[in-house]
């Protein structure tokens, strides 16, 4: 009860952000978030270390109905992710918001920081709530807080549009969740997650699962409900994108895990597994192909988040299928992989968005082809961004590799043991292709922004950002390196969660995964040593040689210029020629024709828009417009008509109540 009351007090005190002077608002918000982070992290670490589930408050009766808050291992791991990302985000926000302090009103800044603190607190509440009204309340609070955060730059029309689209889509998702809970209550007369077990008993009520999957999938960005991500992230400030993309969309993953873990009938679990795996494969492939085609840093990162959610769902799907087949080892392997990837993604995606924030705050654009050679002006950002890039490409020896390694192991294990062979092989091929295209997308991003020569004069005027932002970025960077080099310790944590979901049988007892991860760790260290050794030998040998510098070799062409560099658009041109049917391309201006020997100045701008965007947005808008038009006919402007409508309405009510319909 103590924790609950302190959390409540914290939540109420958040309002004080409005009172303090404008320069101190960030520290006030940080203090709140840090306090909340410590308050939940302590019991969470305890639970992960083996303590029993901590019940913070049971049966809180309020106007929100009855609910309880508790920390079980699954909640604990998400709490830790939220706590770390929350603190890093607040630390980062100071430098990012600083230039706006003079431009925006004090209330505006207060609103932003209050929303940020509320977002972190509400996410904590989401993972601690045991279902029902309390959960929905926290979920809605999270949506509204993030909506306000996206709206920070509301003067820009596209920000307003993106924020509204986000709000609408989140509420469509919310309706699915409400429908899910209503269905649950009508079946079991209870709305807690644990009552789902009774609901799903003997393989009934798969529809409830589908409703929850749709509701949570909207937040997580599952295909085809992902369209809000690439709109919202470029519109939001970078630290907001970081916490939304790194953490908030994971609450969708959390929800699906909660729901699926309540199933007990093998046939039903199998169906759920196929659905989840299928959703993961489509989401992952769609996300990564679209990511590779984007020409905007933050849009690319947003699509990559969709891809990573896909990867997590592939892992969950394989785990669920293995569970249906009764193979606990493979289930735990894939589940640990998915959980580890969830943690990993929160680390490297926050770091990537922070990096994007750094370059945006210096160059005031996120268009890929305006950059080039930023590494020379912002070396620390460049190194940290490279670290995150390599981690997201799942390259050893960093953390991204370890998570995907375990998912792969689960799939190879399925194939080897002959359970769900074809599903696992399909997942394997998809994940391999995703892994390959991620490399394309992120080498494109990194090399266009940080490498080569500057394509715009802004680059030359940019300089490294303040130390506090670098310090904030160091938090996820440290996580990336530590989990990458010593995955065996991360396994201990996720294994505890996986075994709590899988009903007791731990991975550590049933497989040699621990020994394997020790060897992975050893390999990573060998790799680093060999690379360091080679580099040292090379540098030493070069001391006695003539080393000279000159311009880049132009292959005999004597006047190459900066505009001839490969752009982001040309880098992914090969992929576009294959995947052209996935996007709708809008072209402004005209490309240089093949027959133009001395081309005049051209303006050429191409955008690759998601076809699903059109499917979800434009068709509905068109439908609404038609309905609206019909309705307009009723608005005649004559008072006698309106009285007639009122009369018809009353008659309708009388008639309907006569037949006991209402």
């Amino acid at each position: 009860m103590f924790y609950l009351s302190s959390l409540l007090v914290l939540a109420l005190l958040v309002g004080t952000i409005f009172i303090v002077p404008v320069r101190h608002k960030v520290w006030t918000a940080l203090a709140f978030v840090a306090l909340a982070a410590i308050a939940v992290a302590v019991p969470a670490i305890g639970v992960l270390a083996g303590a029993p589930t901590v019940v913070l408050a049971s049966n809180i009766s309020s106007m929100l109905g009855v609910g309880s808050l508790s920390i079980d291992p699954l909640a604990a791991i998400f709490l830790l992710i939220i706590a770390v990302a929350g603190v890093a985000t607040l630390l980062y926000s100071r430098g990012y918001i600083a230039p706006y302090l003079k431009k925006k009103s004090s209330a505006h800044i207060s609103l932003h920081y209050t929303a940020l603190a509320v977002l972190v607190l509400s996410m904590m509440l989401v993972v601690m709530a045991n279902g029902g009204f309390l959960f929905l309340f926290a979920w809605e609070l999270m949506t509204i807080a993030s909506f306000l955060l996206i709206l920070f730059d509301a003067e820009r029309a596209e920000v307003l549009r993106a924020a509204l689209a986000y709000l609408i889509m989140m509420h469509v998702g919310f309706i699915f969740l409400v429908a899910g809970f209503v269905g649950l209550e009508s079946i079991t007369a209870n709305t807690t997650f644990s009552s789902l077990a009774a609901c799903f008993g003997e393989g009934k009520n798969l529809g409830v699962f589908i409703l929850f999957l749709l509701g949570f999938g909207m937040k997580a960005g599952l295909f085809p409900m992902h369209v809000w991500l690439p709109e919202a992230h470029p519109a939001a400030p970078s630290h907001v994108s970081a916490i939304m993309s790194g953490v908030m969309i994971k609450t969708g993953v959390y929800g699906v895990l909660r729901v699926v873990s309540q199933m007990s009938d093998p046939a039903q679990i199998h169906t759920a597994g196929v659905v989840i795996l299928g959703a993961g494969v489509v989401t992952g492939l769609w996300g990564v192909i679209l990511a590779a085609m984007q020409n905007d840093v933050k849009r690319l990162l947003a699509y990559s988040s969709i891809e990573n959610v896909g990867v997590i769902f592939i892992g969950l799907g394989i785990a669920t299928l293995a569970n249906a087949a009764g193979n606990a080892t493979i289930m735990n392997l894939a589940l640990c992989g998915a959980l580890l990837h969830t943690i990993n993604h929160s680390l490297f995606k926050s770091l990537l968005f922070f990096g994007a924030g750094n370059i945006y705050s210096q160059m005031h654009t996120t268009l890929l082809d305006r950059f080039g050679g930023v590494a020379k002006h912002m070396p620390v950002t460049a190194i940290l961004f490279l670290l995150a890039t390599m981690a997201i490409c799942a390259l050893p020896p960093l953390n991204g590799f370890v998570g995907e390694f375990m998912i792969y192991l689960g799939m190879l294990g399925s194939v080897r043991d002959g359970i769900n062979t074809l599903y696992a092989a399909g997942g394997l091929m998809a994940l391999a292709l995703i892994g390959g295209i991620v490399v394309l997308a992120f080498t494109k991003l990194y090399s266009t922004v940080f490498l080569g020569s500057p394509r715009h004069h802004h680059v030359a005027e940019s300089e490294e950002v303040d130390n506090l932002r670098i310090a904030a970025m160091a938090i996820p960077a440290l996580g990336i390196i530590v989990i990458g080099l010593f995955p065996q310790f991360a396994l201990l944590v996720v294994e505890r969660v996986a075994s709590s979901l899988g009903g007791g049988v731990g991975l550590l007892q049933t497989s040699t995964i621990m020994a394997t991860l020790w060897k992975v760790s050893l390999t990573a260290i060998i790799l680093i040593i060999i690379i360091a050794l080679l580099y040292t030998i090379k540098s030493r040998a070069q001391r006695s040689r003539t080393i000279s510098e000159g311009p880049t070799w132009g292959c005999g062409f004597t006047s190459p210029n900066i505009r001839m560099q490969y752009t982001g658009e040309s880098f992914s041109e090969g992929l576009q020629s294959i995947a052209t049917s996935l996007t709708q391309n809008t072209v402004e201006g005209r490309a240089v024709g093949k027959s133009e020997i001395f081309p005049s100045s051209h303006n050429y701008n191409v955008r690759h828009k998601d076809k699903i965007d059109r499917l979800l947005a434009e068709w509905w808008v068109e439908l609404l417009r038609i309905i609206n038009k019909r309705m307009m006919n009723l608005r005649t402007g004559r008072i006698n008509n309106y009285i007639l409508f009122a009369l018809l309405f009353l008659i309708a009510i009388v008639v309907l109540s006569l037949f006991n319909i209402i």
Partner: protein
Amino acid sequence: MGIALNTLLMIVVALSIPGVINRTRAILAGRKGLPFVQHIRNVRLLLRKGSVYSTTTTALFRIAPAVYLGAAIVAMLFMPVADLYPLISFEGDVICFAYTLALARVAIILAAMDTGSSFEGMGAAREALYGALIEPALMIGFATLAMFCGYTSFADIFAHEQSFNAQLTIVMFLIAYLFISIAFVESGRVPVDDPRTHLELTMIHEVMCLDYSGIDMGMIHIAGWLKTACFSMIAANAIAATCCFHWWFATPLAILLTGISIGVVESTQARNKLIRNTTFIVTISALAALIFFIGFLLQSDINI
């Protein structure tokens, strides 16, 4: 002892394959040809030279060759030579192998982009695309091996000698064919790319290292040999597993199999038009899926 011999044999394979390719080409063209060790002499020369660096580049450009070679060396350390044992081996090392090679690829792509040259950008973009498209073939190839042999590490897959049966032989020969095809793509040989032309005309691999010289270039060459040797050794192991599972059989097989097949293809075929390459590579991935399915059918003893 076995481990040392294993590593040594891998190095021998890596050093010999380019020589065999050159000899094959010379014989087929009726030329006298280069000495067998000419490529080693060339690299030795490179290793003794100084370097020129582009002023556009950053430190990344200088570290990349070390990463490229280091990753290739680690990938090689996973590879068993038939009945010998590799230095590193654990459950799932096939995945580690694939992603270590991906690390090598990322290093060289970023280094190429670091120069700001449009030629190198072209090569890098192609390498990234072809690398992405070949990845499923690699993974599903490993999955086929895992399904058939019951293990997920190279050493265990090949070391647990199977009793001879027709199913195994069929699948293993298909796997060998698959991995030689992958070796063609990964090492940028005809029909995917032609390394014999003047550098700018070689559209993928060599064009990416236009700005490298001296030691860096030497390291990149050595890494290329090692990568080819790894794929070649997988193919040789697969064949050796069906008839004669000993290192003295697998080593020459690995050298000759890839060396001669690359030599013959380069002497008889022209390079693909670049636009055809994607089709070519996707076909290999489709083939890999087909091989997996054949393996699946054969293993589940379905009466067809």
